[in-house]
């Protein structure tokens, strides 16, 4: 039975690369050989350890192999399972971790081609994000341009923790390309682990790493606003994926407070941070890091000061909730419709575009 309204768009699911072998047909000869010669095995990251409960819900975990790594399973569990009309595939693979810009570009290209051929060509309900070699902005733009004509790619995907704060001008060519092509910029939880995932160094446990992701999102959002990304690229939509959202009101209170006294440092920021968020930033629903009771969540929604900010997501196959209880109690029927249908459509301009399958060779 469908758990959602007709027309619902799931803005964050995670089809997985079953193994590096799956990408080999889509790699150029040189890089295919380099993978073998250098003995490159899986581009695993510690962001989602294979056996962590968070990595896959028990009832979705396959007997063998990686969760969510074949189309039939994703169709059954994610698309049919929730009854969503469209789901946006954000593939988390360790492309961003590589120190070689060339190898990162080769893997990103293979990964996106694999996504187009093995998933998008075979399932019309799927859309995807373009994975980029964020290590090099020029190469990242090349990868965006390669897929820009394929309207099934609706977003550019970055990790919240890379080599530098996300507002830095070195990354602006990526944002210019995204804006130019009507692609949202999806910023997903995770790190390239070139730097510690917390600002005070390396944590001991996975618990700390995962919980502290919201701090990384706060830093990223502050950087994007203060560096003037939304002044330079006013049509750019940024979607914070798997960020949680209960921290947002308090963080914006704090940012607004200090903007009032320090704004001459960043004079291009000529409106309050909340106004900028309202026009340019969205957040995915799951994981809901909200209060356990409906009344408190309703209060929090008031603090959000907008019913346009949240986008429906299941975060499939990650274990954030059980059964089909993807919407937390305390969301009104009107807000639920906005979260499931209206807000995603308003955010992802390309969802309205006619999709020409196989548009890109």
């Amino acid at each position: 039975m469908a758990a959602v309204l007709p027309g619902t768009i799931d803005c964050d699911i995670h089809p997985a690369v079953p193994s590096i072998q799956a990408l080999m047909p889509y790699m150029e000869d040189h890089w295919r050989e380099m993978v073998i010669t250098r003995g490159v095995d899986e581009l695993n990251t510690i962001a989602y350890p294979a056996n962590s409960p968070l990595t896959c819900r028990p009832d979705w975990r396959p007997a063998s192999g990686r969760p969510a790594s074949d189309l039939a399973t994703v169709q059954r569990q994610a698309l049919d399972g929730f009854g969503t009309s469209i789901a946006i595939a954000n593939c988390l693979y360790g492309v961003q971790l590589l120190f070689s810009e060339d190898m990162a570009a080769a893997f990103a290209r293979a990964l996106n081609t694999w996504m187009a051929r093995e998933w998008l060509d075979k399932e019309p309900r799927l859309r995807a994000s373009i994975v980029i070699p964020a290590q090099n902005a020029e190469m990242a733009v090349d990868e965006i341009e390669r897929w820009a004509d394929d309207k099934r790619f609706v977003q550019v995907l970055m990790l919240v923790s890379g080599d530098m704060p996300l507002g830095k001008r070195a990354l602006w060519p990526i944002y210019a390309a995204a804006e130019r092509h009507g692609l949202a910029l999806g910023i997903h939880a995770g790190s390239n682990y070139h730097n510690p995932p917390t600002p005070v160094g390396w944590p001991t446990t996975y618990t700390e790493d995962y919980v502290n992701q919201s701090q990384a999102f706060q830093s990223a959002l502050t950087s994007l606003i203060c560096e003037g990304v939304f002044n330079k690229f006013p049509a750019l939509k940024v979607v914070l994926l798997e960020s949680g959202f209960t921290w947002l009101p308090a963080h914006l209170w704090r940012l607004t407070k200090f903007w009032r006294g320090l704004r001459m440092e960043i004079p291009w920021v000529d409106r309050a941070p909340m106004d900028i968020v309202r026009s340019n930033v969205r957040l995915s629903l799951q994981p809901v890091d909200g209060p356990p009771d409906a009344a408190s969540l309703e209060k929090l929604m008031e603090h959000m000061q907008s019913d346009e900010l949240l986008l429906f997501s299941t975060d499939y196959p990650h274990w954030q909730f059980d059964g089909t209880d993807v919407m937390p109690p305390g969301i009104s029927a009107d807000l639920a419709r906005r979260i499931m249908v209206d807000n995603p459509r308003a955010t992802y301009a390309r969802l309205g575009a006619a999709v020409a399958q196989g548009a890109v060779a």
Partner: protein
Amino acid sequence: MSWHVVAPVSEIPPGGRKLVTVRGRPIAVFNIGGEFFGLLNRCPHQGGALCEGVLTGLVESPEPGRYSYTRKGEILRCPWHGWEFDVRTGQSYCDPEKIRTRAYPVEVEPGKSVVEGPYVAETLAVKVEEDYVVVDV
């Protein structure tokens, strides 16, 4: 409202300021290049004494990385948290419609007319040959 004599012009040179009390209200009087302005000496944020703030310019930007600096000396920064106020209007930069400190009309009048009235000068001895700063409170 009535006009009150608060200082001889010679006491507040251009760029200068004076804190006066009129009808119980603390008012900071500023001389910006020969023009006089009066603001309630109380930041609407948390009550900081605006009279002690730095006078700066208006920093604006057409796009990130470009800085324009105009109206030098016409923007008052609260000494407590740095909120900026337009000396001419009392409006804040951050939320000009909602956050503002009260601005009082200030004029310069010759001593001769001040002596004739209807000006109030409780604490000043007025001389006809001097000009005076008068505030409408």
